[in-house]
């Protein structure tokens, strides 16, 4: 499953999608909204996507991941909209025969999402708001 969605992400439900009889290793990563950033007290985050491109970029990242590692199942989901502290913003899960490729492919998935997925977060903190200048312009 590859998805950009305004709906809440449920990591336990997504992990069930990774079940596969040939998969001996399942690695998942959940990116969670935390209550502080660069010394600021964060109130909530707002994620804006270029939805059509984010969907096609997820497909492209999946294609590259599957070319590089032999994986049985991949799930990558990114949330949009307003997220409270503790909510899951992004989920990446990989099921593979062995743990090494599951770890490596999961790491590749989240790292590439952070570099290439056209999604932006605005941090609302005590005293103001700012677009977070992330990565790799």
């Amino acid at each position, binding site marked *: 499953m590859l998805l950009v969605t305004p709906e809440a992400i449920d990591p336990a439900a997504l992990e069930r999608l990774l079940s596969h009889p040939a998969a001996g290793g399942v690695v998942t990563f959940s*990116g969670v909204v935390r209550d502080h950033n660069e010394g600021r007290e964060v109130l909530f985050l707002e*994620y*804006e*996507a*270029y939805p*059509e*491109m984010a969907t*096609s*970029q997820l497909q*492209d990242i999946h294609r590259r991941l599957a070319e590089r590692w032999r994986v049985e199942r991949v799930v990558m989901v*990114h949330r949009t909209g307003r997220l409270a502290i503790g909510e899951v*913003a*992004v989920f990446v899960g990989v099921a593979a025969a062995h743990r090494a490729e599951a770890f490596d492919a999961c790491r590749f998935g*989240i790292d590439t*999402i*952070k*570099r*290439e*997925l*056209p*999604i*932006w*977060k*605005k941090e609302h903190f005590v005293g103001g708001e700012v*677009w*977070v*200048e*992330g*990565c*790799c*312009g």
Partner: protein
Amino acid sequence: MRFKIRLFAMLREAQGAEHVALDLEEGATIGAVRRAIAEGFPALAVHLPSARFSASCRFVGDDHVPAEGEELALIPPVSGG
């Protein structure tokens, strides 16, 4: 040819619009689009050095020649996750 360039996040807010439009000669490259934005849209110009362009939902370089009607967007540094 007329090009419409979609804007997101800090660029959308800086310009106060969800897109800008440009008239350029046929065969114009993304580099020409970049220069035209730098000259015509001061609110966006400051963000241009760190922004990438997309065409038809793929990142493209300055040598890309967009087709008429192709969807272009200016992509500021992403910050998902």
